[in-house]
């Protein structure tokens, strides 16, 4: 079953990615407004100049030629020129990837770490106040608009307590004497967006951890282990935790779609120069190629992550059969 299922799932994933590509292309053709007028704020442009620009960007071709060119260029890794930044899309995106990876990566680590601990405590003290509080926290953070949480965090930590800067990635115009000073400055800017992002994720992870642990703890072999007189902590560490980690790993991958949405909001609130804020800027500037590039990258990553999670899950967990 496994091999066939793997091939089938791979085909599905490829189809989905292809659909994303076509969808992506079509969507951006129907955006309102003429991209040329955005690019050329030049009232005195001659018709020849405008024509020249059209040719340069391939806008003079019929749609199917444009679609063909789009796929051809895509395969060559060429995402086109950004109208607004007047640079290749790939290099604009390239410059913005790292901040997002660092921020989201750190937030994930913090959230997973905190989520596991909280979930563990809740599962262990099932039915107590701590358990209920975990559920409450998880539900409230789930219900909260991410940007609003960010706003409140800025007010508390920057405006009132003056602990961290309000926005950006480094103090502007700063000349650093040592690399250490720069890293410290970077970290100071990193903390609040990371905190916001983590809070959004912690509830989710804690809840999953708690539920899986509860399941695991009621399994026969745990009961057996208990009966054999093993120490509680030992049982948790050696038996329960490893088994509960599986759904966590899957959840992290599946969660990526949610994380993308959160990233757009967090980066906008904190002016964090990553992919999320780039997407927002591109949307505002009607920079089609750039928006298309970011959207593509994000969607394909999510599809791939889901695919990997799906495969991993069905391979490792024998209970999942489809």
């Amino acid at each position, binding site marked *: 079953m496994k091999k066939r299922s793997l091939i089938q799932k791979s085909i599905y994933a490829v189809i989905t990615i292809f659909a994303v590509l076509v969808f992506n292309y079509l969507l951006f053709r129907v955006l309102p407004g003429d991209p040329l007028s955005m690019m050329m704020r030049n009232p005195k442009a001659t018709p020849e100049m405008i024509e020249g620009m059209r040719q340069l960007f391939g806008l003079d071709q019929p749609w199917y030629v444009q679609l063909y060119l789009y796929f051809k260029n895509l395969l060559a890794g060429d995402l086109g020129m950004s109208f607004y930044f007047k640079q290749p899309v790939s290099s604009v995106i390239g410059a913005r990837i790292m901040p997002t990876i660092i921020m989201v990566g750190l937030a994930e680590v913090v959230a997973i770490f905190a989520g596991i601990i909280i979930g563990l405590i809740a599962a262990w003290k099932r039915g107590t106040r701590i358990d209920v509080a975990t559920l409450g926290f998880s539900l409230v953070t789930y*219900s909260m608009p991410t940007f609003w949480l960010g706003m409140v965090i*800025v007010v508390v930590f920057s405006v009132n307590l003056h602990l961290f800067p309000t926005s950006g990635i480094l103090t502007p115009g700063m000349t650093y004497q040592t690399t250490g000073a720069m890293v410290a400055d970077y970290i100071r800017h990193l903390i609040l967006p990371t905190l916001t992002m983590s809070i959004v994720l912690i509830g989710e992870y804690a809840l999953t951890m708690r539920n899986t642990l509860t399941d695991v703890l009621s399994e026969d072999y745990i009961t057996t282990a208990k009966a054999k007189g093993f120490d509680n902590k030992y049982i948790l560490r050696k038996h329960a935790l490893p088994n509960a980690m599986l759904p966590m790993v899957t959840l992290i991958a599946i969660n990526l779609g949610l994380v993308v949405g959160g990233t757009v*909001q967090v980066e906008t609130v904190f002016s964090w120069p990553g992919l999320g804020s780039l997407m927002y800027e591109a949307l505002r500037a009607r920079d089609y190629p750039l928006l298309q590039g970011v959207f593509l990258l994000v969607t394909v990553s999510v599809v791939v992550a889901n695919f990997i*999670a799906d495969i991993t899950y069905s391979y490792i967990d024998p209970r999942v059969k489809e």
Partner: protein
Amino acid sequence: MHYKEFRYRKLKEFFRAVKNNKMALFGSVTLMFFLLVAVFGPILMPFSTLDFGNVEDILLPPSGDHLLGTDDMGRDILANLISGSRISLLIGIMATLISMIIGCVIGIVSGYFGKRIDQLLMRFTDFFLVIPWLPLMMVLAAVLGTNIWNIIFVIGITSWAGTARIVRAQTLSVKERQFVERTISLGAGSKHIMLHHILPNVFPLVFANTVLVASIAIVSETTLSFLGLGDPSQASWGMMLHYAFESGAASAGAYWYYLPPGFCVVAVVLSFTLMGYAFDEILNPKLKGR
């Protein structure tokens, strides 16, 4: 195995564990409160408070005249919240309706006909399940332009996939039941069976799911508005937060401006979520256990 289902199942188990009754009660009371406010609010609140104030009315802290203070245009925040509740709830409910209809149609058709149609429709559904919702909504809202009906449409069209999946699964099981098989053998048309036999049996499950979708819809509206993609002529809670952010209410210390709309959103979304799980428990006892 997808995110929403995954989460859904886990939460549901949790619920059972902590005796959901109190929470369901909390959810329904809160939601009822907001619905009543939305429906009767305009009768209760002073009618002139939505007009723009004068310069001296700008960003007043809470007082006897203005229980929750005023905003940056000198309007009463409480009155704004009340009128915002109508718009936010309207968007949430309408978007959910669209999502429910699309989800039901696709789910039932897919589950009933099976084979190729099922394959095709489920690919289509998967596509909408995996695409990150916020970027998709942002792009669609920008394409269509910012008015309230477009926003409803955008949210509806991007959030039906989970419903479709659940409906399909339920359709598959209903289809196998004897009475449906008997109806088929009696020569009833597909349309008739789907409408009169499958839909009524699928509906309880859809209803519970719908309530959950509503919570997503309201958060979505708030987020789109915050990003400047809301309808400027409709002062929803999301638009209030957008204006609060734009006018720097947060750093000006005008907590009465940026906190209440946020609390309202959290309260309503929370109650929808709580009720959704509760409904599911009550209406679908069959689904207990895996």
